[in-house]
């Protein structure tokens, strides 16, 4: 019934082995085809996956919609990652996992700050910057700021960090699991470089 590629099976084994460990695991990998890096955080029932996104990939998506050139550049150069958050249900506890991205903290060049949320982007644009239809793309394409996941649930979306391409930062992620607040760290996340830095 399930069609799982070899890569997915190997990734799954790594994830499974990692999950068997008591502490948080961060699996770092590089896609051999496109060179994009992935950071996969696993602790308890939560999995958080951050996948680099080239500024040109974001430009290509945004140019299909009615964003001004300035907004397209600002978004494309804001260190956008594809983000997946999942409640694996691996523990068998049946507990929900919930996140609030307002609680996440990034450390960059010695400063600690919040990540740039979709509400902040949307509030910063006039109708000239982004049409109502274009704003819908951000409303639904960027990761929900708050969400609860039952076992088996996952969500996909874009997250932005507001720092230039090629920057390196650490991210402290927090979540609620079974009524308890928990946190972990993903270190040395690299924002994808812009096209002029590619070899």
């Amino acid at each position, binding site marked *: *019934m399930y069609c799982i590629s070899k890569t997915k099976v190997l990734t799954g084994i790594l994830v499974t082995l990692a999950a068997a460990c008591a502490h948080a695991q961060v699996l770092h990998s590089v896609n051999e085809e496109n060179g994009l890096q992935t950071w996969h955080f696993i602790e308890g029932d939560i999995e958080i996956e951050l996948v680099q996104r080239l500024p040109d990939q974001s430009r290509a998506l945004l140019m299909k919609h009615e964003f001004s050139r300035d907004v397209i550049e600002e978004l494309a150069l804001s260190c956008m990652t594809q983000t997946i958050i999942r409640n694996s249900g691996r523990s068998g506890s049946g507990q929900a996992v919930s996140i609030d991205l307002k609680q996440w903290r990034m450390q960059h060049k010695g400063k600690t700050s919040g990540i740039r949320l979709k509400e902040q982007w949307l509030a910063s644009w006039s109708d000239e910057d982004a049409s*109502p239809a274009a704003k819908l793309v951000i409303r639904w394409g960027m990761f929900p700021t708050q969400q609860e996941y039952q076992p*088996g*649930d996952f969500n996909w979306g874009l997250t932005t960090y507001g720092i230039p391409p090629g920057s390196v930062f650490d991210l402290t992620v927090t979540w609620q699991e079974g009524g308890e607040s928990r946190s972990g760290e993903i270190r040395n996340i690299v924002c994808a470089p812009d096209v002029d830095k590619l070899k």
Partner: protein
Amino acid sequence: MMVMKALQGLVVSLAVLAAAVQADQTLTAIPGGVKAPEFALQDTAGKTHRLSDYRGKPVIINFWTTWCPPCREEIPSMNRAWHLLEEDDIAILAINMGEDEDTIFIFTADYPADFPVLMDQAGDVIAEWPVKGLPTTYVVAPDGTLAYRAIGSREWDDNVLLDAVRALKQGR
């Protein structure tokens, strides 16, 4: 000896992995008899569908867009589910958020969808539903209440899911 241990470890890992994959095939029950928000939306052929038109049968309602990877991933299994459910008098409606007929038409050339695809171009309907991310799927019971929810994609032709929906038809 070490090879045996490695193989044992691999087998254990694969078993746990299989369980993890299986665990993804979940529907979350929604207690309390919450009424599903009514809507009236046109499909890509111009026909208007109201949720209340489907009263008396379970309805699987999928919110999606063409640019959302997991949405694209689950369309083929949803299409297979549609054919599996044809004789069960169970409906599937896919509500596309924010896109026009041309975009959906081009998409469905690559990802055939034989079930009705409704267009919520202004995002008014999705705003009335408890949806935070895409894809999200609700199962509406024959009495018009929300029965189940799934956040993220599923393999919709899996009988683990479809039997839960069929049970609603049988009043269980």
